[in-house]
Every structure is written in structure tokens, then in C-alpha cells.
């Protein structure tokens, strides 16, 4: 009659074990996405930004357009290579009104249809989004970050609770930028040695960091996860190693992280440590 | 070297038509002289682009600077360089005179004028050296930021051109007296070069010292 009791405890134990194992597994599973994933296939990297599709649209439009142009012209060429060979008697013509009209017409069509389309759309996208910093900063809950690029890493600085840069509660990170989903992120870039270029493949944006000036970059994240910060401008022997991680968090998670990190920062603040005080007054007009 | 290269002004070998106005006839350029003239014009145009780029660089660093001249640095002297402007202008005039004299076959006169031009050119360099020495003593060094950088780069680069022109004028002055000593276009082309160098100085003086 003890056996059943043993059995019951055994079952309870097993259940609890399985349960905890499951939760661990779940956590592990949760941790699994917490690292930049390699991109599937050869196409564009996953677009995880709100506005990246504008650029992708133009990329695919141009790809389609030039494929058609290339195919048509190549077809003409191949045709005349195949048919108009030694046996074919050459036509004596320096070009006449009609043939010239065909050339000019084709060029005009391409200029208006392709170049024109690209110009208009790019103008719109740049003005409305990619280079529209006042609008981004004015947006509700916009996140401001100062990034100092140097050989060969990315220092990021958040204003902390007081919303001001260069104060004890600034959150400073190394090669680790965190942003919330949905809201505009405005980055002000500087460099202390050579020119670098902050490049976010999954967000389709890029901006040089130039010594002696502050440049700006803005984007909006859409999908939580970890993505890569790449350096696009050759900046010395270890240019290839200048890799950071950009973590996109749910708004709540981001707020918690920032508050926590702000606390740590205030505790760890050391006025003597000049190295740590590279921040600058946020530039409204750089 | 350039003038020597371009200036192969042999007469065109055409039979001389008997024209009333002998002076005009003497000044009539041969085919080869026109060619070398065109070459020199293109060369100067091209070299002007180089100086244009230098001036552009000067303008950019100046516009970016908070103040000009920066508060902690001495203003440049105006008088001595101003005098220098007059010197190089006079030198240009002398050379212009020499060119015409030589073209008309007055070789001794041409030689004297060339000598004078060269002398004034040397004086220009001497005064320039004085200016540099003075500033240097005041601790105005190229490493002191964009302001001295621009000043030394432009003036030194210009001085190099003066040096080249000077050497050429010297050689011409020595060769000029003998009737067959020089081709017409050798004198003419080096003259053009010299005027060019003078003009650049004018621009330099205004941009660097006055503005």
C-alpha cells in the first residue's frame, strides 16, 4: 500500500520536473531568437523597418525596368548578330529621320518613364521620411540617441530620465543599441578619429560619421529582434570588425531597460573619468 | 622646360610676300608659333584649375572656422605684401616690354628688360621670405590650424611658381642679346607664364591679406 504513495510522489516529481524543464525550454526558445539571424537566400535582407518598403519598392521597380530595357535591346542585338552577318548585304545609311526619331523617342521614353519616376518618388521619400528630421523628432515618444563612432566600435548614449545629454544619468552602451518598436529613432552621429558609416542593412539606411561634424540618421523599427549594425566606410585595418548589435524591443521592455540602465549609470557615474564624457548638447540644427 | 618645349618657332618657310607694313609683317606669327601659343593657353587654363581648387579649399576652411582670423592668432601684415604686389606688377610690365622688343628684333633692349623683370622677381621672393620669417618668429606655424595652413600652403605653392619663372627669365636674359639666341615664342610664352603667376599673386593678396 506504500507503492501507490510512492507512485504519486513520483508522478508529482515527474510533473514538476517536466514543467520546469518546459519553462526552461521555453526560455531557451525565447533566447533562441535573441541573436542576429543569417539572411535566407540571396535577395535583400529582411526589411524590419516601417519605411524600408519605400526603398525596396524603388529597388524592385528599377530592377524590373532595366531588365525590360536590357532584354529588349539585347534581343535587337542578338537578332542582328544572328541575321545580319556576312551573307546579309549591308544597308547604306547614315541614319535617316525615322531611325533617329526611334532612338530619340526611346531615350525620351526611358528618361521620362524610368528616370522621371525614380526622381519623383525619391524626392517624396527623402522629404517625407528619410531626411525629414524635424518631423521625426516632433513625433510622439521619439527616441534620441547620440552615437560616437571610433576605431572600431559604436558608443551609444541615451539622455536618461532627465531627457538631457551629458548628465550623470546618461545611459552609455558599447556596440549595443536598443530601440523600441514603432516610434521614430533619431541618431546623431559623430566620430573621433576617421570617417565611419553607420549602416543598418535590415532598415535600408546608412549615414557617415564624420570627424568635426554631427550627422543625423532616422528610422522606425517594426519587428522586435536583434539585427546588425555594420560599418560601411573603410576605417582602417579592422573596419571588418566594426560590428554592433541593434536590439528592437517592445515599448514596455525598452522603457524598463532604459530606467534600469539609468539607475546603474547614476550609481556608476564618475565625474573624474573624462573618457566617459564624450556626449554633446543635442543639436537641433547641426 | 615648357617654353623650351613649346617654343620651336622656326619660320613657317613660306615665301615672304612684300608687304608695306614691315612691323606687322615681322610680328606675324608662324603656324608653329600659333600652335605653341594655343598650347600655352591650354596649359595656363589647366593650371588655373589647380589654383582654383586651392582657393576653393581656402574658402571652405575659412567658412567653417568660428572666426577669421581665429582670435588667438595674429592678423597678417598688409603693407609688405602690398608692396610686393607692386613689385611683381612692375616685373610683369618689364617682361611685357621685353616680349615686344624681342619680337621686333631689338635683342639688347629685350635682354635688359628681361634682366629687370628677373631682378624684380627676385626682390619679390626676398620680401616674401621676410614676411614668412616675421610670422614664423611670432610662432605662426603651419601646424597652428587651418588658418596658418592655408596661408603657408598657398603662398609657398605660389612662390614655387615664381622660382620656376625666375629661372626661366634668367636663362632668357642671358641668351637674348645674341640675334639667333632665342625663338620669339620662347620669350612670348614665358612672358605669358610670368603674367599668369603675377595674376595669381594678385588674387592671393586680395583673398589672404585683404579680405
Amino acid at each position, binding site marked *: 500500500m506504500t507503492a501507490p504513495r510512492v507512485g504519486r510522489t513520483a508522478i508529482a516529481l515527474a510533473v514538476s520536473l517536466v514543467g520546469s524543464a518546459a519553462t526552461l525550454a521555453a526560455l531557451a526558445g525565447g533566447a533562441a531568437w535573441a541573436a542576429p539571424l543569417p539572411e535566407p537566400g*540571396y535577395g535583400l535582407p529582411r526589411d524590419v523597418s516601417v519605411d524600408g518598403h519605400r526603398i525596396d519598392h524603388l529597388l524592385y521597380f528599377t530592377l524590373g525596368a532595366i531588365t525590360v530595357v536590357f532584354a529588349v535591346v539585347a534581343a535587337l542585338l542578338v537578332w542582328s548578330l544572328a541575321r545580319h552577318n556576312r551573307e546579309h548585304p*549591308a544597308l547604306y545609311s547614315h541614319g535617316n529621320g525615322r531611325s533617329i526619331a526611334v532612338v530619340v523617342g526611346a531615350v525620351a521614353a526611358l528618361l521620362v518613364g524610368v528616370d522621371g519616376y525614380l526622381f519623383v518618388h525619391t524626392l517624396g521619400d527623402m522629404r517625407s521620411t528619410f531626411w525629414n528630421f524635424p518631423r521625426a523628432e516632433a513625433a510622439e515618444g521619439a527616441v534620441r540617441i547620440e552615437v560616437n563612432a571610433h576605431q572600431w566600435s559604436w558608443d551609444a548614449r541615451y539622455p536618461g530620465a532627465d531627457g538631457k545629454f551629458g548628465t550623470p544619468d546618461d545611459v552609455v552602451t558599447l556596440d549595443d543599441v536598443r530601440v523600441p518598436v514603432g516610434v521614430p529613432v533619431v541618431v546623431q552621429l559623430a566620430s573621433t*578619429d*576617421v*570617417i565611419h558609416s553607420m549602416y543598418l542593412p535590415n532598415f535600408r539606411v546608412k549615414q557617415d560619421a564624420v570627424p568635426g*561634424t554631427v550627422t543625423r540618421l532616422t528610422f522606425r523599427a517594426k519587428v522586435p529582434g536583434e539585427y546588425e549594425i555594420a560599418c560601411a566606410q573603410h576605417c582602417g585595418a579592422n573596419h571588418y570588425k566594426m560590428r554592433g548589435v541593434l536590439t528592437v524591443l517592445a515599448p514596455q521592455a525598452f522603457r524598463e531597460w532604459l530606467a534600469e540602465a539609468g539607475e546603474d549609470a547614476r550609481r556608476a557615474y564618475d565625474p573624474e573619468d573624462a573618457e566617459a564624457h564624450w556626449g554633446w548638447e543635442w543639436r537641433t540644427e547641426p | 622646360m615648357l617654353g623650351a618645349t613649346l617654343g620651336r618657332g622656326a619660320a613657317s618657310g613660306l615665301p615672304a610676300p612684300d608687304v608695306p607694313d614691315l612691323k606687322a609683317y615681322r610680328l606675324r606669327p608662324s603656324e608653329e608659333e600659333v600652335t605653341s601659343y594655343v598650347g600655352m593657353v591650354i596649359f595656363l587654363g589647366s593650371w588655373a584649375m*589647380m589654383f582654383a581648387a586651392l582657393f576653393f*579649399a581656402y574658402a571652405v576652411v575659412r567658412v567653417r572656422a568660428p572666426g577669421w582670423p581665429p582670435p588667438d592668432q595674429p592678423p597678417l601684415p598688409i603693407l609688405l605684401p602690398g608692396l610686393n604686389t607692386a613689385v611683381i606688377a612692375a616685373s610683369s610690365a618689364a617682361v611685357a616690354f621685353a616680349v615686344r622688343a624681342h619680337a621686333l628684333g631689338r635683342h639688347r633692349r629685350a635682354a635688359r628688360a628681361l634682366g629687370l623683370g628677373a631682378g624684380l622677381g627676385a626682390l619679390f621672393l626676398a620680401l616674401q621670405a621676410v614676411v614668412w620669417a616675421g610670422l614664423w618668429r611670432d610662432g605662426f606655424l603651419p601646424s597652428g590650424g*587651418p588658418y596658418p595652413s592655408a596661408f603657408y600652403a598657398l603662398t609657398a605653392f605660389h612662390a614655387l611658381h615664381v622660382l620656376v619663372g625666375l629661372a626661366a627669365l634668367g636663362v632668357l636674359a642671358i641668351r637674348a642679346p645674341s640675334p639667333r639666341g632665342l625663338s620669339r615664342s620662347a620669350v612670348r610664352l614665358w612672358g605669358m607664364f610670368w603674367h599668369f603667376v603675377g595674376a595669381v599673386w594678385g588674387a592671393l593678396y586680395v583673398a589672404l591679406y585683404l579680405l
Partner: protein
Amino acid sequence: MSTIAQVLAEASQPIHPPPTSFWRRYVFSTDHKVIARQFLWAGLLFLLLGGTLAMLIRWQWAFPYRPVPALGRLLFGSSGGVIGPATYQHLFTTHGLVMIFFAVTPVLIGCFGNFLIPLMIGARDMAFPRLNMYSLWTFLLSQLLVLASFLTDLGSAGAGWTTFPPLSTNVGMPGLGQTLVVAAIFVTGVSSTMGAINYVTTVIRMRAPGMGYLRLPLTVWGLWLTAILNALFVPVLGSAALLLLLDRNFGTQFFIAGASAVRGGGDPILFQHLFWIFGHPEVYILILPAWGILGDVLAIFARKPHHWYKGTVWAMVLVTVLSAMVYGHHMFVTGMSPLLGEGFMLFTLLISAPSMVVVLNWVATLWRGSLRFDTPMLFALATVFVFGVGGLTGLFLADISMDLYLHDTMFVVGHFHFTMAAASFIGAMTGVYFWFPKLFGRSLDERLGRAHFWFTFVGITAVFAGQLVVGWAGQQRRLFDPFQYTFIQGLRGLNQWTSYAAFALFAGQFLFVWNFFKTLFGKAAPAGANPWEATTLEWTETSSPPPFHNFDRIPEVVRGPHELSNPEVRRLTGRDYAGQAEVLPGGGEPGRAAAGV
């Protein structure tokens, strides 16, 4: 019987006796034909060097951290034949510089410019033969400086061919190597300027009687416009290099800024302006001669006049004029003012129009021709294709928004390899195969030529397409080990296959080397004056190779450059072509029977 015009021309360009001493003849020669051959040798040797450097780049991307076979121990013995990050930056920097300034430029401009301009316009020599010689020797000096830079202990230049400061100053690249290379750029600039002055003057002043501007062969148009661009913009590069040298060696502060500046500070972007004001015209400097060569070669091998000659000429002129107004498209992400950026974008999109006219005119020239597929024609046709790809990919980059993503990725590298490393390079190859008989009196072997062609065409397309695809997927350029990035790891295989294609391409080039030497020193039969039945003066009015004085009698030009398949001419001469200076039996100039297309 020679006309007054010819007498005058003869008078101003008398025949000089050829020099007798060995040195004056083959070394310190002022004969434009000798100088052209010297430029060809200098260029081809550095082409080999640049190609070898490219192979090292490709090796690194195919097999990172693995010792380079054969060459490795020799070059990087200290690291056991493995390419290190520091070495890698020297590799791509010198590869780019060597290819652009010291390989393609001397072949395309130094060799063909020198050889063809006087011969095609009917002159006895350049306007300034001695200046021409100085240009060659300053160029050789610059090549020596580059070679010397490899021997310095910190290695050669490493700041990229664009040499952007502050990286290219002592802040980023201490050591003599970078200095020597910047000096080399300055010196080669001086050489180019001298050459340009000579070319421009020669075309303006030395054209044979009757050779009006609109009768110039398109090759001459291309070379002339290139020379004009050189004369105008190489000096700008010169001053950039000069200021950079001052920053490196005399402590000035034009380009050093921020924390790396002692105080105040200069402007790194200033250098980029100066560089690209030169840099964009430079890319047209490299393509215009190729365009010109194609214009003539396609017409001659299609046995059909070039379609809308005037249109092509004006298109090339327009490109030349616009070339300096688009340079900002290299600087979209440097933080330039939006308005400026938009302006540059507009001009960049506009400049593609004349280029399209040029390409479509080629197609129209081939259309309904009677094509002959000799090796020069094969290379010419390949050039049309690859330029099409290269040019069209330029449209992506012309747009600021797409450039935000594509800038400094391999897509840019693919774009400019298709335009420059493909179109300019095999455009030059077209010229080599086409004018070899005129240069050396013998024709290159056709069978070897064909083999070389297929290796080159297929190889180049594969390699540079590979670059475009990885660029599209986001891979940045100038990465010692791209696979540090997880988002690039999926491209490992593609990068490796691209490398295999590159090795095949390189191997294929030795068919050309072999062909070259075999023809030169073997016992090939003399080519004859006009093996291709061409129409321009260098073929119709003089022997192969031409005598020291080029033309026994300075020709008088009576018609345009491509009088091919004119029925009237065939009736009078039984041939399908008439030379530019050929006086037809009965002296009658056949009316341009503008038979409908």
C-alpha cells in the same frame, strides 16, 4: 597633284630625318608612335600587377585565413602566406589605384591617344613631341613610386583608392607607403596634364586639310574630349593630393578634424569634394575613349556607316559638359544639404540620357549591317553588353533613397567594374586587337584571340555579376572578412564561386599574353596596310607600321570617317569602302545616297 592646302600643311610640318642613335630611337624618342608603344608596355605590365592583386582579394573572400598558394610565402612570408587585415587594405587600395591610373589610363589614353590622334587626323606627329616624351617619363616615375611603396616597412597605401582623410593622414595611415602613393598620384597627374595639353592642341591645330571636326573619327572625338576633361580636372586632383601631402608631412590641417585635430581643425569632407570634382569626370575620362573606339570599330565591322554620327558626337560632348555637375552622387550619405543632394541626383539622372543615345546608336549601326566577327568585333560587341549592364546599374545609385542602402556596398563595386573594369578594359582590348597590325605590322592570332575573348567575356560577366548580387544582398565593400557579419554568412558560397570565376578570368588572360609575344617575336606574316578594310587615314594613307614621318604626303580629307557600303563607291571602285582621303576614279564625290533604313 597636291592642293594649296596640302602645300601649306607640308610647309608647317616638314619631314624630319628619323633619329639614328639607339637611345633617341627606342628610349628617349619623341616619335608619338614609339611613345605609344612604351605606354602600352608600361600599362600592360601594371595590368598584370593589378590583376594579380585582384586575385589575392578574391582568394581572401573565397578562403579567408588560408595561406595563398605559391605567391603567399613570397609576399606575406611573415604571416606564413596568410593575408592579414592590414595587408588586405593595401591589396584593394593598390588594386584600384594601379588599375585606374597606372594600367587602363596608359593603355587607353597614353597608348591609343598618342598613336591614333596624329595618324587619324593626318599629322606628322604631336604638336609638342618633346612634351610628349616628358609626359611618358614622368608617368614612368609615378609607376616607380608605386612600386617603391610596396617595399616600405608599413606597406603600401591602405586608405582605399579614394584616399579619404583623416584615414589617409598620419592619423590613420602612418608610414612612407601612403605618402609615396599620394606622391605618385600627383606625379601621374602632372603626366596626364602634359599629355592632355598635347592632345587638345594637336586636334585643334594639326588636322589635315579637309579634316573638319565633324569628319573626325569617333575615336579621336573620344580621345579629344577625354583630354579636355583631363586638362580641366586632373589639376584639381593634383591640388587635393598636394594638400594631403602637406597634412601628412608638414603638419598642416586641411583635412584633419574632430578629436584627431590638435585644435580648430579642417574639414575631411573638403577632400571628398576635391576628389570627386575630379573623380566623376575621371570615370568618363576612362569611358569616352572606349566609346569612341567602339563607334569606329562597330561601323567598320558592320560595313555600315555609324548611325547618326552627329548624334553620337553631341551626346559625347554633352556627357563631357555634364560630367562635373554630378560628382555629388558619391557623397549622398556624407550629410550634404538635402537641396544639393537633390540637384546632384537630377543631373545624374539626366546624364544617363546622352549615354543611352550613344548605346542605341551602336545598336542602330549594327542593325541591317553585314557583320564580320573578327576578334576586335567580338570584343566590341561584348563591350556594348557589359557597358549596358554597368550603365543601367548606375540608375540605382543615382537615386538618393536607393543609395542610402546601396552606398559602399558591393553593388557599387559591381557597377563600376561593369562600366570601368569591363567596358573600359575590354574596350581597350578591342583597340589592342584592332590596331595591333598598325602598331607592330602583324595581326594577332585569331584562334587564340577568340579563346581569349570567351574567357574574358564570360569570366568578367560572371565575376562582376557576383559582385552585384552580394551587393544587392547588402554586403559592404572593403571587408577583410565579410563573414564576420551573420547577415552575410549566407553569401559565403556565392563569394567563393565568384572567386573561381575570377581565377578562370585571370588564367584566360594568359592566352592573350601568349598571343601577344608569339605574334611579336614569332614569325607571323606582315599584316599589310589595311587588313580590316577600314576607312580612316591610319589604314588607308600609310603602311603598317607607319614610317617615322607617318605620311609621305599629308592627305587631303574629302569625306567622313565611315563611308561604307556606298553603292556609288562600289560601282566606281569595286570595293565596299572609300578611304577618308581617297579620290575616286573620275574624282566624283558620290552623293550620300541616304537610302531609307
